[in-house]
């Protein structure tokens, strides 16, 4: 009996883990892209790009990720846009965390000393060359720890997709509880799995920090 229950639980959680991992990794990838696009857009030379970036950042930081995912999944169909739960989940999580990431990119870039910009200019580097090879490589290591925190937040927030019928870990744990009446086991398992995911993200960030330390440039 207990053995059956445990293997049922393990199967459920593993199924859910796949969805949670997919959401976390895809959402983080989208957030990463948004962070750079809108973080640099926020300090663009072009006013329209700056305004667009600020509007995106403030809307997604100023409303809850919960409401954003609900909007994408339940409200957009009213405008003729029907998203799959998975796509709505990735989009909602990625756009939300991307808005926080954009501020991280902006502040890390702006924290780079004025002397670096002036040296680039005096050496006749183009704006692209300056950012790509001088400013961003110095700013990136400053972003990583905060990106790591954001990724953890995204992973934890991913549990809300259980409310748009995506079978992630939280959803599976709920189902298991309803099916078997067990409460302690599924939620203990959920707790442990989320914590292991957290440790995984920590290790990922530390590896990235090691890889992005100062070293000779490869042109």
């Amino acid at each position: 009996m207990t053995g059956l229950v445990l293997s049922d639980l393990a199967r459920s959680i593993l199924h859910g883990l796949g969805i949670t991992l997919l959401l976390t990794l895809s959402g983080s990838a989208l957030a990463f892209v948004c962070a750079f696009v809108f973080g640099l857009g926020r300090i663009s030379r072009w006013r329209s790009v700056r305004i667009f970036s600020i509007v995106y950042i403030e809307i997604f930081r100023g409303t809850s990720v919960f409401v954003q995912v609900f909007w994408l999944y339940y409200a957009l169909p009213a405008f003729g846009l029907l998203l799959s739960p998975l796509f709505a989940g990735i989009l909602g999580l990625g756009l939300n965390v991307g808005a926080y990431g954009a501020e991280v990119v902006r502040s890390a870039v702006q924290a780079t000393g004025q002397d670096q910009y002036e040296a680039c200019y005096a050496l006749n580097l183009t704006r692209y060359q300056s950012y790509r090879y001088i400013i961003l490589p110095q700013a990136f290591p400053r972003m990583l720890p905060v990106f790591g925190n954001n990724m953890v937040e995204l992973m934890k927030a991913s549990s809300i997709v259980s409310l748009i019928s995506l079978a992630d870990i939280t959803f599976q744990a709920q189902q298991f509880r309803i099916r078997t009446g067990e409460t302690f086991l599924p939620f203990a398992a959920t707790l442990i799995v989320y914590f292991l995911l957290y440790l995984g993200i920590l290790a990922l960030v530390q590896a990235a920090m090691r890889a992005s330390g100062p070293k000779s440039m490869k042109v």
Partner: protein
Amino acid sequence: MTSMEPVFTPDPMIAISDVSRAFKGTTVLDHLSLDIPAGQKVALLGPSGSGKTTILRILMTLETIDSGQILIEGVPMYDTASGTPHLLPENRLRPVRSRIGMVFQHFGLFPHLSVLDNIAFPQIFNGRARKADAKARAHDLLKTVGLGDKAYLLPDQLSGGQKQRVAIARALALQPDILLFDEPTSALDPQRVSEVLDIFNMIADTTGTTMLLVTHEMEFARRFADRILFFDHGQIVEDGPPEIVFTNPKDARTRAFLGLPSLNA
């Protein structure tokens, strides 16, 4: 005098023409005009806030001017058609700016790149050299400034004087016609100052580069320059060879700055 042949007068390397600049209402440069012929070694002296560093930053186009014009060998940096000067668009300014190099007071080395890459990188991205040639040239320049064995260190592993020599090598690698130095001796131990002077003289002798430097050190200026400009309140109050400016300046402010007795005393 009797000849009717036109006399060929080359454009000065730098022509500053009636330039004014104010920051938040404070006049930093006040209708300043100045010609500097090619190959001249000029030291800009004067009290803090007298506008001498601003001149360097304006030549590097890190700052702009409120009125006037600047020409580099006859080529303007500003479009003055509308009455007020506007810096030329980047595509037209680049060829002019690329003739000018600057060594900053705090060097502005790129901390994430090796000493070698600091020097090789700008050459590659200016299209001056391919990677292998740029690195070879960087090695040569490092040997020239006496840092041949530091190529693979990071800038933060160097002393202030060594950083400065890397910054000089980095600017030289782009073969500028004009080199600007902002307070080149301020970060150095006094005993290192003559080393820097040797490097400057070597640059002048081997490349004929026009050099402008801002300094507070009279002795350094005297030994380096063919021409001393003494600034006060955004104007040049003394202009001449060091032996004249330092021993018998005309201007009362220069005399006061140098601790010389007043002329009409």
